[in-house]
């Protein structure tokens, strides 16, 4: 393991900063592995029902708002870029750029949740919800096409559970990023402590990467449905 000059950032139980940074990264990746398996279970359940009821899932997906989802995709991908630029700023010891990049990331994440809020509001307004409140019009439309309205609602269960759990991850991420902003602002993230930013960024990028799969599975499953049915 590489040695390094003494730093107040170095914890007493590590030999040097190189070892400390490697351990921090590995610890976060192990946590991310559990997150991947957690979402893997959700994706697995979705896969089974998508294979069993492909037409109901496509029909239900065609009623979701893809404009909101597209805007949110742009927000998340851009936030991943600014988060990575924040690590660069931390390594360079550029406190102003670090705070700025982190704030932009938090703002994009907040914008994602605001758009998600408008999207949920629209869904509720259109009664695009599973259970007794489910839209009679959409149910009739499904029946007219020979589809089971119950399975359409099943897709909506996946939609709310998967986007809801993803949204909770976004909110946790915003909290972590704002904590980083505070730490950077008070000068607690010198260049040799850049890994503090890096471990939060690893979490943030995973949340982004999961969305890159939620987008096609939930919103694009019914893309072009009207034109082809």
């Amino acid at each position, binding site marked *: 393991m590489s040695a390094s000059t003494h730093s107040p950032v170095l914890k007493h139980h590590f030999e040097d900063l190189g070892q400390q940074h490697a351990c921090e*990264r590995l610890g976060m990746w192990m946590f991310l592995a559990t997150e991947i398996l957690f979402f893997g279970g959700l994706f697995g359940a979705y896969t089974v029902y998508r294979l069993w009821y492909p037409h109901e899932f496509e029909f239900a997906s065609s009623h979701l708002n893809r404009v909101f989802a597209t805007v949110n995709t742009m927000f998340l991908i851009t936030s991943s870029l600014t988060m990575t630029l924040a690590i660069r700023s931390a390594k360079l010891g550029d406190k102003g750029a670090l705070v700025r990049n982190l704030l932009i990331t938090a703002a994009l994440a907040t914008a994602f949740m605001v758009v998600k809020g408008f999207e949920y509001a629209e869904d509720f307004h259109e009664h695009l919800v599973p259970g007794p409140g489910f839209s009679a019009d959409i149910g009739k439309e499904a029946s007219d096409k020979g589809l089971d309205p119950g399975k359409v609602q099943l897709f909506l269960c996946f939609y709310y559970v998967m986007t809801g759990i993803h949204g909770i991850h976004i909110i946790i991420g915003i909290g972590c990023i704002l904590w980083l902003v505070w730490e950077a602002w008070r000068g607690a993230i010198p260049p040799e402590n850049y890994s503090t930013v890096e471990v939060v960024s690893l979490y943030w990028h995973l949340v982004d990467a999961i969305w890159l799969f939620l987008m096609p599975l939930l919103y694009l499953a019914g*893309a*072009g449905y009207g034109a082809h049915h």
Partner: protein
Amino acid sequence: MADHSPAPGATTDDPHGVRKELDSPGQLLVVFAAVIGLALVNIFGSGAIGPTKFTLVFQLAIGSVQAWLVAYYFMHLKQADKVVTLTALSSLFWMGILFVLFLSDYMTRHLLIG
């Protein structure tokens, strides 16, 4: 006891050697443009193709390339220790086992039940 000799790659203005693996903003922008571009291809391509049995494969292939770009460049797997790369790959391996086991059940039930 900590060894306080200079870190590999250390210089006067970088005593801890943290800048030796500094991201190039140009490269990050290229990766960002690629991920955005692939998202747009996925969105508009899916609409053009419509829901066929190949559409999901098309969409997930694009999503996988995007996730790989994010992991390799933004999450720094490009410069990661072997143990970190192994941890990342093992999570996919375990997820593969998860999918193989339950799909082998759900996908063959109709063969057994008739």
